């Protein structure tokens, strides 16, 4: 009896809660660590970037307007769904070249990382906000607010690096357009399937696969993108993207220490926050 023929998956983009192919009709070959064909990934275009930013902008009002408790619940639900797909993620990371032990450790770390960020949703305002003791009869307080649409150029740590850049961007209410790791995009699309089935509103996270050096400049120049995380950008491309980002004064996180296993701290969350200060007179 012949062996069962596997049903292969067609990897697509994730945009506005749906899974379209690239409007360009292009794809590129993803190989495993030994160079063998694994899949054709969608090769997103400039138009896809624009559509994804449009979807992210559309989702911003609703997502940022939810209560932090609700965002925390939804993010925790994402972690639950991630946990349920551990085996699939381990397989994909092994395909990308990690040993079984390393892949398992990375998936566990990614799930735990997501849980950690989920818990921040309803604590950020208490930690990053303040009541300000001004020298006058005024009630004065500062609260953090999301900055808007964040463009994330994800690092080549295909799952842990990915969640470590996406979760801090959205936990405060931002929406994100993510350019996945170019050599290892498959965990990103699987993450998209997790997000699509975990109550996260469509458009909050949009994931594009393709060529980083082709897509990142359009994110950097887009006037409706408010911030950029350049985590996955090679050193020689940073200056150009930062210059482009200056066009509408995007908040930029430069590529830094790429030890994604280390304790992340709050810097990635606060980088995409604005502080709003409200004054009101006290008295009659």
């Amino acid at each position: 009896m012949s062996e069962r023929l596997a049903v292969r998956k067609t990897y697509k983009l994730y945009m506005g809660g749906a899974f379209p192919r690239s409007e360009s009709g292009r794809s590129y070959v993803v190989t495993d660590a030994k160079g063998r064909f694994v899949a054709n990934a969608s090769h997103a275009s400039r138009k896809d970037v624009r559509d994804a930013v449009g979807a992210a902008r559309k989702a911003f009002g609703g997502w940022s307007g939810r209560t932090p408790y609700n965002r925390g619940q939804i993010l925790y639900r994402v972690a639950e769904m991630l946990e349920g797909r551990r085996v699939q993620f381990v397989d994909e990371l092994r395909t990308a070249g990690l040993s079984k032990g390393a892949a398992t450790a990375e998936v566990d770390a990614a799930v735990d990382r997501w849980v950690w960020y989920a818990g921040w949703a309803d604590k950020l305002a208490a930690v990053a906000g303040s009541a300000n003791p001004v020298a006058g009869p005024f009630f004065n307080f500062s609260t953090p607010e999301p900055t808007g649409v964040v463009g994330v150029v994800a690092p080549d740590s295909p799952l842990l690096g990915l969640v470590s850049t996406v979760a801090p961007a959205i936990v405060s209410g931002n929406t994100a357009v993510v350019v996945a790791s170019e050599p290892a995009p498959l965990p990103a699309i699987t993450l998209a399937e997790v997000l699509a089935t975990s109550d996260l509103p469509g458009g909050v996270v949009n994931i594009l696969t393709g060529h980083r050096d082709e897509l990142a400049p359009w994110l950097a120049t887009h006037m409706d993108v408010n911030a950029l995380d350049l985590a996955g950008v090679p050193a020689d491309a940073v200056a150009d993207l930062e210059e482009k980002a200056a066009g509408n004064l995007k908040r930029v996180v430069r590529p830094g220490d790429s030890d994604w296993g280390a304790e992340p701290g709050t810097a990635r969350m606060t980088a995409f926050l604005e502080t709003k200060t409200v004054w009101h007179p006290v008295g009659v």
Partner: protein
Amino acid sequence: MVFEYAPAPESASVARIRESYGQFVGGEFVRGGGEPFKSVNPADETVLAEVACADDGDVDRAVKAARTAFDKVWGPMPGAERAKYLYRIARLVQERARELAVLESIDNGKPIRESRDVDVPLVAAHFFYYAGWADKLGHAGFGTDPRPLGVAAQVIPWNFPLLMLAWKIAPALACGNTVVLKPAETTPLTALVFADICRQAELPAGVVNIVTGAGETGRALVAHEGVDKVAFTGSTEVGKEIARTVAGTRKRLTLELGGKAANIVYDDAALDQAVEGVVDGIFFNQGHVCCAGSRLLVQESIADELLARLKARMATLRVGDPLDKNTDVGAVNSAAQLERIRELAASGEAEGATRWSPPCELPGRGFWFAPTVFTGVAQSHRIAREEIFGPVLSVLTFRTPDEAVAKANNTPYGLSAGIWTEKGSRILWTAQRLRAGVVWANTFNKFDPASPFGGYKESGFGREGGRHGLEAYLDV
């Protein structure tokens, strides 16, 4: 019977203006390599003093002096000692308050009432506030051992010359950084008196350096390789240029840029209070305020009544001699700025808005612009979109709160906003939806060192003031 105001001029002599000023580098006043320039009194166009101009070599020496001071003295110094220096500076500012206020009004053109009651007291308050942080940085929420960044390059505008200096220098020094600051070329004098205050405080040489000059000097400073941090307050256009300059470097950047604030007046607002706030919002400091309430959004049902009261109030504004203690609106800072205000106001008329100014006799010499209000303004008009940076108010109307918010947010800027209503839930609802860094409700243009200030969107990034203001000067 009408009582006329008698002139109540403050004496200019307390300003002790000298014929020429050097820049302040490494604890010494030194001449500059560039062509010296003149600072002019905008109220009568007389030359006040000649000021040294820093060339690239001067900027280099200043950055090196700051680096040496950072490495050898200021960086290693315990926070408690840094705090005492900052307290000293705060006290010296208070001791020389009248001199500073008068000099600021002469050099800038702002009314003495404002420099005396707003600018200088806030300068002292900023140094007091950040002095107290210097030995408490571990408690500021940035980890237990936050580190200074190093040498900060700071470029400030001409609208609040001394106050912007305080906003930049106080937190930088409190965090352990050393600074090279460039004041605007039209208003360098109070910064140079501040340099003298640093000497009186016996601040170690090189901790504060003041280089003087115009755009070229600023560019050289921002681009200097020895700088670890750049902080800029000024126009959005220059802010973008600076962001491009520091792109790809290790330099950290904070920007406080332009604004086009909406001042929203709902139909249930206390109208006389709202009128006071609208006037304060746009005519304070001749409208030379990045957070000025330059777009009045008034609910349609009360627009006529509010405008009548606004015009009546504007007619009582006294425009003239900045040193007269009765003056409400002083001189425009420079001929170039006056020209820009005139050009934009002319575009308002050309595009179809209706212009009104109270009867008001302007002095024959100097740079003056009467308080002006435009009605019938559409969102597409330049006067509703571009920052004018002058005493020009554009009035638009709205019908529903949603429309007010949509119009208020319809700008690339996001620095400040005002809300006038007696209903608390409406204040909070509106404040939540405004994309602006500072929201004044039933008040306007209030500032305090304990209160974070800064913009959303193209009004820049980073905050000055409060605990948040420390982050710009710490490695976090």
